[in-house]
């Protein structure tokens, strides 16, 4: 009977003792955390306001969770923590399994004492300002499964001790300044699923030991200085979904063994020095969605096997030395959104069925040797957003080749052999900001419907056989920044409606048959830095309003029928560097005001009817002046100016007037003095 109450009180005692110890231990950890919090630079942190001595750390503190009364989880991500880890109570919090301090402003070093957190399973210090090397002692945290220190300013090497973290599944060290080689011991992390080392300054080869990481799903080593070849053994990482090796200095071939990576959805090897052909085994990567091989030295053909990769959405092979035709099979890729093939030596025609899936948005094939007409499937490709066909030898009738593209914002067809006319369809491409069809064989006139494309910024129709007038509707394109129509057969005058194009930065109408006068509203083009109206039939005088285009650097009005004086207002063009008024009928004197244009470098005034002295300005002295009426000056090829009486008189009269004024003032002052003396003596 007496034993039961004894046992009971015994139990009570130990329960109380246990509870006491638990509470006490929790208080010790709480105190330690508060001591660390006190070192923060900003003390009025609202999220951490709950961290006080009077509250229960395990129950009430933000970001703190306990297990059996000991702090087990510390998660204060994106909490405006501005401090260091120097006073972090590593020794007091040995029960911590989960630490997340990401997205704060934690600076300073990662102290080696971090190894005291022996139970740590999850450590996230990412997106902070930590600036140190990764302590070797992190290798002691053998329970660690997840280690994120990306986006800091960590430097020094990746410690080979990280290879001791046998339980690691996810390791992210990206976006730091880590140097040295990738330690081969990382190959011991056989549980690893994710390895991100990108955006550092790692050098040396990709260790073939990484081929041991049989569980790897994602490997990113991009944006480093890695060299040597891609190890063949990477082809054994059959669980790999994502492989990014781009932006390094990798050389050698793309291993055909990469074709074994059956689960691969994204492969990026761009911006390296890879050589040889694209392996046909890449056609086995049936899950592949994204393929980036651009900016390398790959040669040979594009394998037609790529047409097997039905899930492909983005293919980029630009800037290589690829030859032969684009495989017809690429037309089978119904999910294709982006196809980048520019800057290679591809020949032949575009595949027939491109865009048959109706999803193709970006088609960039510029700078190749492609020929033939545009496939009819592209005429109906209403998903087009950005298209570059420039610098090839495409042929065909422009209006038949292209249709209406409601989402198209950029198209460049320049430097090809298209013929036919620009039709009104372009006016229905409501999102178009850039239309370039320069240097083709386009005929007909500029369709007035182009004025419907209100957001057009750049229009280049130069070097074609366009006829007719500049439509007044061009004046509706009030956002226009660049207007190039040079080297066509356009006639008529510049419509007054073009006065609204006040955003123009560069205007070139040269080499046409434009007539009439140079409009005075050009003076409103306050952003214009370049104006070329040369080789036309513009007549009458150069408007003085040209002098209001004060940002003008280049002015070319040569080869026209301009008459009258050069307006002195051109002296307002303070940053003019190049002036060409040659081959006109300009008469009178070169305004002496132009002497002030000290920034001028090239001046061409030849073949006019100009006379009189040249301005005393280096650019005019070195200018092309031949074929004028009576220019004179101290310049080779010109007769010296006789003292033209009017000019000398003007100058000397001014001098004389100045002299008289000085004498009068002087006399005035002495007489005052005289008076003073006189008055004193009186």
């Amino acid at each position: 009977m007496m034993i039961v109450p004894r046992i009971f009180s015994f139990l009570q005692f130990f329960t109380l003792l246990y509870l006491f110890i638990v509470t006490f231990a929790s208080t010790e950890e709480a105190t330690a955390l508060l001591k660390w919090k006190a070192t923060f630079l900003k003390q009025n942190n609202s999220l951490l306001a709950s961290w006080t001595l009077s509250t229960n750390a395990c129950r009430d503190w933000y970001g703190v969770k306990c297990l059996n009364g000991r702090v087990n989880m510390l998660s204060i991500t994106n909490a405006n923590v501005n401090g260091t880890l120097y006073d972090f109570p590593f020794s007091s919090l040995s029960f911590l399994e989960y630490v997340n301090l990401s997205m704060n402003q934690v600076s300073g070093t990662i102290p080696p004492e971090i190894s005291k957190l022996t139970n740590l399973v999850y450590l996230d210090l990412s997106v902070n300002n930590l600036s140190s090397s990764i302590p070797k002692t992190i290798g002691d945290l053998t329970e660690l499964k997840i280690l994120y220190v990306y986006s800091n300013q960590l430097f020094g090497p990746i410690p080979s001790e990280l290879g001791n973290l046998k339980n690691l599944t996810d390791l992210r060290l990206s976006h730091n300044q880590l140097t040295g080689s990738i330690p081969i011991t990382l190959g011991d992390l056989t549980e690893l699923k994710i390895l991100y080392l990108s955006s550092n300054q790692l050098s040396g080869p990709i260790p073939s030991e990484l081929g041991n990481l049989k569980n790897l799903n994602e490997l990113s080593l991009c944006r480093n200085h890695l060299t040597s070849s891609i190890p063949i053994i990477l082809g054994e990482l059959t669980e790999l979904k994502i492989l990014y090796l781009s932006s390094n200095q990798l050389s050698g071939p793309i291993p055909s063994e990469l074709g074994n990576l059956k689960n691969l959805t994204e492969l990026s090897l761009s911006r390296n020095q890879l050589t040889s052909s694209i392996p046909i085994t890449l056609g086995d990567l049936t899950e592949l969605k994204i393929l980036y091989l651009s900016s390398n030295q790959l040669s040979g053909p594009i394998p037609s096997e790529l047409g097997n990769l039905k899930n492909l959405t983005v293919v980029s092979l630009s800037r290589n030395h690829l030859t032969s035709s684009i495989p017809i099979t690429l037309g089978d890729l119904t999910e294709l959104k982006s196809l980048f093939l520019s800057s290679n030596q591809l020949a032949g025609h575009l595949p027939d069925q491109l865009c048959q899936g109706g999803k193709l948005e970006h088609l960039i094939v510029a700078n190749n040797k492609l020929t033939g007409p545009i496939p009819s499937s592209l005429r109906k490709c209403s998903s087009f957003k950005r298209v570059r066909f420039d610098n090839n030898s495409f042929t065909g009738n422009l209006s038949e080749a292209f249709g209406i593209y409601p989402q198209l914002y950029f198209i460049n067809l320049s430097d090809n052999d298209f013929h036919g006319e620009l039709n009104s369809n372009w006016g229905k491409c409501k999102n178009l900001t850039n239309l370039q069809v320069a240097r083709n064989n386009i005929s007909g006139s500029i369709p007035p419907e182009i004025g419907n494309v209100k957001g057009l910024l750049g229009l280049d129709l130069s070097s074609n056989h366009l006829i007719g007038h500049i439509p007044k509707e061009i004046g509706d394109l009030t956002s226009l920044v660049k207007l190039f129509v040079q080297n066509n057969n356009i006639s008529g005058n510049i419509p007054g409606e073009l006065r609204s194009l006040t955003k123009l930065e560069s205007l070139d109408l040269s080499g046409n048959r434009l007539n009439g006068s140079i409009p005075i509203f050009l003076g409103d083009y306050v952003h214009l830095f370049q104006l070329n109206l040369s080789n036309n039939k513009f007549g009458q005088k150069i408007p003085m309003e040209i002098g209001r285009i004060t940002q003008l650097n280049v002015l070319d009005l040569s080869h026209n029928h301009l008459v009258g004086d050069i307006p002195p207002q051109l002296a307002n063009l303070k940053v003019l560097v190049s002036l060409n008024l040659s081959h006109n009928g300009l008469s009178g004197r070169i305004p002496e005001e132009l002497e002030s244009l000290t920034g001028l470098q090239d001046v061409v005034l030849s073949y006019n009817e100009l006379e009189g002295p040249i301005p005393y300005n280096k650019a005019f002295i070195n200018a092309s002046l031949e074929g004028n009426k009576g220019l004179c000056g101290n310049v080779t090829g010109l007769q010296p100016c006789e003292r033209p009486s009017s000019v000398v008189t003007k100058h000397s009269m001014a001098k004389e007037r100045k002299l008289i004024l000085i004498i009068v003032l002087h006399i005035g002052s002495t007489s005052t003095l005289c008076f003073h003396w006189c008055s004193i003596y009186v």
Partner: protein
Amino acid sequence: MAICFLFHIFLLLLTLANANVEGDALYALRRAVNDPDNVLQSWDPTLVDPCTWFHVTCDSENRVTRLDLGNAKLSGNIVPELGKLERLQYLELYMNNLVGSIPPEIGGLKSLVSLDFYHNNLSGTIPPSLSKLSNLRFLRLNGNRLTGRVPRELTKLANLKIIDVSNNDLCGYIPTSGSFSKFTEESFKNNPRLEGPELMGFVRYDTGGCN
């Protein structure tokens, strides 16, 4: 998890943008400014170079030669990354609402012919590093709130034809040697604390009183 995904995309975008130094430098400007008129809408960092961007002009080797963003309602800072555009000839940022100081890195623009920062809200001093711009012909910093001295180093700019630092808060003396011998007081007017041209041949006490 959404953050991880976004970061993933960010990494992918960076892979695409690759080390196109000039595009990255210009994109740094885009990130640093407020652009209410969407003048920089065409500035797509995923393109291999910025040569199809509007208000950017490139040469035949796809290197940036002009940046024309005058009177574009931009506010924010001029980023030091712009100093990496080694073939830039014309840097036109005039008539905006740019603040902060002129980064000394601008002195790295070795091909620069024209530097137009006039009519902004720039403060701080004129960096002496601008003296490295040996091809500079036009320097217009007028209509800002620049302080400090006109660096004497600028007199080394042999090609300088036009300078305008009027309407600022500069102090000290106006250099008169080298290329500055041809400039008049017009280029320096409306700087209430500017003391006037330095007098050559007189002992100069660098009182440091220019504060």
